[in-house]
């Protein structure tokens, strides 16, 4: 027997062997992370979701993950490795894994692939999932409008993509409804993660009289910068709760007055469960507060009681489906009509959002 044939038959025997044992084996759920688990934000929350899967199903599942996988060619190698190592379902948790996920999925039709924040489902075994972060921005926008004393609120933006623009619009729209005099300052950092630059962006806005800032970047640096204002400026936790910033150095509440938390656990538990009981289907999931994927963290005592109650009412209304954060009348920046009275935005428009709403100054960088 030639060596090549020998190897092939060994491989065949091995794969038959695994197939035979497959029913007794625990289901293996694998996760690919774009950053370190210790980023305190985006990747940390995905890992919490992975741990929740283990918690929910105990010995029936096995978890594997790899941190700081670069988007691009490396991702394809890591995914192939995971697929060969017996993963039954693989979650790829960053937008930049989109093509690699689809490419590897084509080669392993029996393995399920789940890609976060993407839109390509080229094969029946590829699903996509995302969260409606703009629902959280609506609540913090309302709080920002009520909290600002200078009537200037800020937004540290990362890149001009629909998800960020959606967040800016939702934040401003609700701040404006809470406080008609409010003015929005947007600063583009052109990075997801650069603590020094994020801190500088916060500092630039603080120096110009902005006193409530929300960030669309991944680190806690903006909060640390806001803390230097000793209770005269406020910010929000982003992606994760960032509870370390709940009190200022002098003991007063702040700078983090509440947070928008990405809670992936319900989705991960549901999908792995569906795979185990055979009800798994390809989906394009975009869930938010009703499903518990977008959560507002504890509100601290810097927020007056009545504002807390209003924010809670908004959370309840969004959760029950009574209220959509983009409900008309809303005009576009140039004054042309976008949503009529009572009309709500459709998902297609939101996912491709490339315009500011009326009242925001400045232009979206091209």
């Amino acid at each position: 027997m030639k060596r090549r044939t020998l190897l092939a038959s060994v491989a065949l025997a091995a794969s038959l062997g695994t197939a035979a044992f497959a029913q007794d084996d625990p289901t293996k759920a694998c996760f690919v992370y774009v950053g370190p688990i210790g980023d305190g934000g985006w990747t940390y929350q995905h890992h919490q979701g992975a741990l929740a899967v283990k918690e929910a199903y105990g010995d029936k599942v096995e978890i594997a993950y790899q941190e700081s996988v670069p988007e691009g060619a490396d991702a394809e190698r890591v995914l192939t490795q995971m697929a060969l190592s017996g993963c039954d379902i693989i979650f790829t948790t960053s937008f930049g894994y989109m093509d690699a996920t689809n490419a590897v999925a084509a080669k392993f039709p029996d393995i399920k692939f789940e890609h976060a924040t993407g839109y390509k489902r080229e094969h029946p075994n590829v699903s996509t999932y995302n969260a409606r972060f703009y629902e959280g921005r609506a609540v913090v926008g309302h709080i920002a409008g009520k909290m600002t004393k200078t009537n200037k609120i800020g937004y540290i933006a990362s890149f001009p993509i629909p998800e960020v623009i959606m967040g800016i619009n939702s934040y401003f729209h609700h701040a404006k409804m809470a406080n008609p005099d409010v003015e929005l300052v947007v600063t583009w950092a052109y990075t997801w993660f650069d603590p020094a630059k994020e801190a500088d962006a916060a500092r630039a806005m603080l120096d110009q009289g902005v006193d409530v800032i929300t960030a669309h970047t991944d680190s806690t640096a903006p909060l640390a910068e806001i803390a230097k204002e000793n209770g005269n400026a406020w910010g929000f936790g982003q992606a994760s709760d960032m509870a370390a910033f709940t009190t200022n150095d002098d003991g007063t509440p702040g700078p983090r007055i509440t947070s928008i938390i990405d809670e992936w656990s319900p989705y991960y538990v549901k999908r792995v469960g569906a795979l185990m009981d055979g009800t798994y289907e390809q989906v394009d999931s975009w869930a938010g507060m009703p499903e518990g994927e977008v959560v507002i963290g504890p509100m601290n005592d810097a927020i007056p009681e009545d504002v807390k109650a209003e924010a809670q009412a908004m959370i309840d209304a969004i959760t029950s489906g009574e209220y959509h954060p983009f409900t008309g009348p809303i005009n576009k920046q140039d004054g042309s009509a976008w949503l009529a009275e009572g009309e709500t935005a459709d998902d297609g428009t939101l996912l491709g959002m490339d315009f500011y709403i009326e009242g925001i100054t400045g232009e979206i960088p091209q």
Partner: protein
Amino acid sequence: MDLGAINPILLIASIMVSATPILLAAIGEMVVEKSGVLNLGVEGMMITGAVVAFAVAVNTGSPLLGFAAGAVGAAALSLSFGILTQLLMSNQVATGLGLTLVGLGLSSLIGKPYEGVKAPSLPRLDIPVLSDLPVVGRMLFSHDIMVYLSLLLVVAVWAFLKFTRAGLILRAVGESHDSAHALGYKVVRVRLLAILFGGACAGLGGAYLSLVRVPQWTEGITAGAGWIALAIVVFASWRAGRVAVGAYLFGGITVLQLNLQAAGAQVPVALLSASPYVITILVLVIISARGMHGAPASLGRSFHASN
């Protein structure tokens, strides 16, 4: 556009804070390069300094002890570079790059327990009379001690290289290690000391990031500041005063572009964001077009007494 919203006093104050980490790292690297050694591990030493300083400051409650520990930690790391390149004759470029990788990995290992922890803050100096002056008081005289230390360090390095015998020896070693050796100077020892100094300075720069500028520890906190410091040394054509100018220019443009954005300037944001890098490249082009390189002649070359 509302440029009136930009307060020049606060702008200059925040430029000084923003420029300090790269200034510290760059002045250290300049001394290393003046001695003829190219250490590309600045990023790795900076981030090691950042994490060690943060850990010590959190555990002792003293930011100044943190700075000292950051300098010592990064110097210790640079010593490994020194031993490899000076005693074991390894390639400086490859070893320097390796040092960066080691520093990044080591720092995330050490930093794990410190994520999300708050650091004790370094108080602003309250200099009698000077801090109370209108305008300049807030602008120049109410920073923390490290800002002034970094500027003093620039003056000290300049004076050391220009006026002292030891400075002359260091420059001689960097220009021609064979001649310096023939004259009886200890080339390897001088270079090791320069490498240690460069490591300590990079550590201080990193410590300034994690204890003052950002104040917290997150993985990858330096985000390329070490590479900027390396570029600034070339930009400054190996002169101490110009290193300070380069660091302040770079820090200044970074802060200024964010302020312009926040003030709603009608300039394309992408252009503003790229401006610090564009201007650095422009200056480098001008310098090389004028033919004033000023690079030490033995820069990056290995030395062994037998050669």
